[in-house]
């Protein structure tokens, strides 16, 4: 399968689009990347600042917890006046502002607990995150059970009634702590407990919807509830992360708008480039296309109008060159035609001379013989010899016969030349080619002699526009030609065929074939290999077929056959002015 090459206009279109789009695209990309990078940088600064703020707040809480727990352990608990140690954490006994406070014995048994009194007398069972025990999950009594809450605590040794005890106190790190943080508007802060796969966030925090966060990269983007967030994280302790997140800001909207505008600009550039390319390529290609259209006409021999010498210099030069070349081509052709005409006349003169010379010579000889015999008789008569009238008479008749024969031959030659010169303009009419072939064969069948005629006429051939008389003349010439090629008899096969453009008639003889050097000159006027032939039969046939817009093809096999095929269109072309003019001038 061959690929159709791109047209010049297509090439120009592609080139224009590329040239127009690439710079705009590059500019848009560069601008978008620049804005996005600066936005990333701003977001990173905000997130980093938030993380630092959380850490700072945690350190403050740690210090506060340490100070208060130390005060309790050193001063308040030893001085507490209660009967039951379980009451040590009662707000009425210890004045503290710690939501988490519990007292443990050296065995780790909870002696008193403010946040989960139910644990009194039971082993402490907190989950501890940090190595120093400051960050832990502590059970806090709630309803019929408890809730594990993340706490930041400090511990301090104490004594009560000679018992060595430890007081532990601190703050919640979940909702209360997170709600107390002064974070920028819209920023979400959360603590992620990786050990238990839980979030410690405020109730309205979007982070709660983040089901399986992967925090290892420490920063990234995530979409929660159809809103995109930039987030950053850092580990507080093993398995416990601080996570901060900010929603997509106005700057994100600007970036999106910029990207959208870039896309629009690129699309507009593509459209504009395409339109410009179409106009420009039309401007460039139109003269070339005119040239391309004119070339086949020139090839057909139609000179047409000269190309307008307009447009770009190169294109104008091309048109001028084309006009010059066409002019030279037609002048050259004209000279060639004139030379051919001269040559034809010369050939004709030579043939005429040759043909006329042949009969003239017997006439001359006969007349000279008669004159010599007459002179010899006159001399005898003058010398008184007796005349042999019988011999003279016989000679006279023979000479007269000869002269008359040669004169008939001369007339025939002259008629033939005259017919060739006077071929009429065809008068087209719908013609059944099969019927015409049968009529021609019927006319020539008596002269077939030993030749057998065979026909294969295709049924239902459409009528063609043709001049019946001229076409029968051409067919007759070809049939007669075939008969002459088979003087000892043979087979003449005549077939009619349907072609894409019309019909064809093939006339095949079983003669000896035509040598190659003769085949090339078959249709040259006055070319003949036969004694007494004018060499005009095939020329006339070709001329007639050409006037019908057709052609004659010859296929020959040496020693076997020769086939002349007349290929005729169903409708002849418009009369070719030049040829008609040529013939009229002839």
């Amino acid at each position, binding site marked *: 399968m061959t690929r159709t090459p791109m047209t010049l206009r297509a090439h120009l279109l592609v080139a224009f689009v590329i040239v127009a789009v690439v710079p705009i695209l590059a500019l848009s990309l560069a601008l978008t990347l620049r804005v996005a990078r600066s936005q990333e940088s701003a977001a990173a600064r905000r997130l980093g600042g938030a993380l630092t703020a959380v850490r700072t707040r945690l350190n403050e809480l740690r210090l506060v917890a340490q100070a208060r727990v130390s005060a309790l352990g050193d001063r308040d608990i030893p001085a507490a006046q209660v009967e039951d140690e379980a009451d040590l954490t009662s707000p009425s006994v210890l004045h503290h502002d710690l939501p988490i406070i519990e007292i443990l014995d050296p065995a780790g048994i909870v002696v008193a607990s403010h946040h989960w009194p139910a644990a009194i007398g039971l082993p402490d*069972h907190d989950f501890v995150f940090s190595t120093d025990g400051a960050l832990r999950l502590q059970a806090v*009594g709630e309803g*019929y059970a*408890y809730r594990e809450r993340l706490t930041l605590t400090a511990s301090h040794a104490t004594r009560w009634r000679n018992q060595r005890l430890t007081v532990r106190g601190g703050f919640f790190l979940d909702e209360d702590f997170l709600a107390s943080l002064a974070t920028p508007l819209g920023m979400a802060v959360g603590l992620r407990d990786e050990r238990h796969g839980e979030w410690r966030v405020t109730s309205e925090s979007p982070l709660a919807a983040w089901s399986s966060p992967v925090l290892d990269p420490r920063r990234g983007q995530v979409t929660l509830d159809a809103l995109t967030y930039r987030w950053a994280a850092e580990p507080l302790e093993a398995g416990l992360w601080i996570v901060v997140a900010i929603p997509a800001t106005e700057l994100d909207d600007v970036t999106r708008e910029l990207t959208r505008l870039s896309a629009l600009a690129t699309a507009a550039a593509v459209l504009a480039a395409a339109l410009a390319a179409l106009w420009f390529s039309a401007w460039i290609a139109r003269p070339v296309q005119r040239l391309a259209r004119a070339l086949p006409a020139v090839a057909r021999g139609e000179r047409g109008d000269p190309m307008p010498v307009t447009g770009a210099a190169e294109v104008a030069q091309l048109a001028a060159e084309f006009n010059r070349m066409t002019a030279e081509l037609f002048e050259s052709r004209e000279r060639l035609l004139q030379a051919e005409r001269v040559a034809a006349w010369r050939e004709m003169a030579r043939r005429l001379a040759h043909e006329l010379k042949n009969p003239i010579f017997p006439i001359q000889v006969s007349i000279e013989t008669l004159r010599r015999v007459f002179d010899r008789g006159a001399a005898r008569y003058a010398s008184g010899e007796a005349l042999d009238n019988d011999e003279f008479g016989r000679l006279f008749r023979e000479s007269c016969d000869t002269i008359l024969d040669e004169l008939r031959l001369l007339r025939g030659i002259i008629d033939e030349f005259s017919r060739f010169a006077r071929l009429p303009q065809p008068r087209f009419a719908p013609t059944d080619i099969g019927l015409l072939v049968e009529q021609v064969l019927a006319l020539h069948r008596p002269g077939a002699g030993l030749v057998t005629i065979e026909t294969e006429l295709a049924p239902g051939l459409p009528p063609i526009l043709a001049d019946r008389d001229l076409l029968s003349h051409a067919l007759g010439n070809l049939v007669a030609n075939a008969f002459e090629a088979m003087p000892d008899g043979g087979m003449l096969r005549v077939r009619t065929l349907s072609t894409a453009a019309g019909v064809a008639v093939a006339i095949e003889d079983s003669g000896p074939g035509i040598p190659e050097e003769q085949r090339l000159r078959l249709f040259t006027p006055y070319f003949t290999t036969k004694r007494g032939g004018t060499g005009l039969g095939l020329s006339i046939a070709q001329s007639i077929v050409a006037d019908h817009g057709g052609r004659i093809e010859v296929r020959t096999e040496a020693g076997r056959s020769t086939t002349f095929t007349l290929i005729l269109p169903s409708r002849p072309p418009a009369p070719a002015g030049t040829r008609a003019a040529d013939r009229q001038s002839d």
Partner: protein
Amino acid sequence: MKIRAQRRLLDGLPLAVLSALALASLGALGPRYGGRLAIGVLDLDTDGSPSFTRDRGARLLLGLSHETLLALDDAGAIAPSLAQRWSSAAGGREWTLELAETARFHADTPVTADDVVRSLSRFLRSGSPAAALLAARLEGGDAYRRGTSDVLAAISATDVHRVLLRFAAEQATPPAELASPAAAITSADGAGCGPFSLAHVVRGERAALLAFDRHVRGRPFVDSVDLVRYADRPAMRLALEQGKIQAALGESGATARVARLLLLLDTERDLFHSLAARRRVARGFDRDVLVRRFMPEAQTACRLLPNESARCDSPARLDAPNTPDAPLLLTVDSTLNPLASQRVVAHLVALGYRVSVAVLHPDAVVSTPADARLLLWCPEVNESLLALHELALLAGTLKPQQLAVFAAEAAHGPHQATIDEQERSLLATGAVVPLAVAPLAAIGPTPLGVNVTPTGVLLLENTWLPL
């Protein structure tokens, strides 16, 4: 030994009465009709039809609006109610109960033996543990209860006021199971014959009852009783303090200690399939701390049945958790004090369990699949053997041979030794862990005599005092 004195060993625990001062004042004034009593409840899941339920509000409503053939006194002894007399024949295999001729339904139709037969037939097919034991003792009772037979020849009416009960074996006394609220006698159209007639009931919200003039024991003292359900304890306590209600059922108060706080461990679940796991939970529980700090009105309980002499052992030191953070689902009675629940949860957490709690209606606490259950339990019938039978059913440890023992003991009158043995046996399974005996109701200032029965039913003590 099957003497009545043994029954008295059951902690019939007379239910606390109102303050002596208030009663003395009432006595001085003399009884008189009139007044409206409003009682707050935490549950009221009933439409008023007799059925077995652990819903204490429903039990109160049923107790007020219905009457049973027999009653049990505070000591657990059988007492007359609708049935005034009884006699036995065929060596104790047949018992005839004779109805009081004055007994009438709220629709003012007489209570007949046919009503008794129909009501007891319904009772035998109910979800009541007492019905299961009675069916095991009656001739053909099991087949009828299981539905394989629709003929119940064991209960029949011999005339309008006499009902004949036939047992598979000889019986020493009439069946105490007939005192179950689920065995209440109703008319063909569902009317009761209790001291109060049900004026209207909105399930789960409120009920109104009016004194029934023709009750078998006479007209109640008060004119009407309203039951109002509250969503939680604080709201009910506030209503009590404001005088909107005169009694609060399920709230701690100066009343009889009749409810037993039990921790039930499900032996069919993986977590407590092994006896060792169950014993580990039971041994280490510090009941003193529970009662002292979280249930100050309660007393420790290490027995399933009341026994004042029983003292609890010191709790064992808690082992290190075998399976730390093993998930445990605990269903908790919604009428329980939340702090008590927190203490039990803390104990389980200290043992290494990661506890999830579902707070449910008392009936759902038992029926919902869970690893453990925390329940304030009142026996269906205030009789030791029936109570143990009910507990064995609750714990899911009742075996066929054990059921036969229960049936035999119920027939002949239970031996104390047998009761003790069954109780020890049940405790040894570790499936039922008694924790405390808790008060069930709080009574506010009221001239009306109000108390709570051992089965958790609020009793209006002076309902039938004559003018």
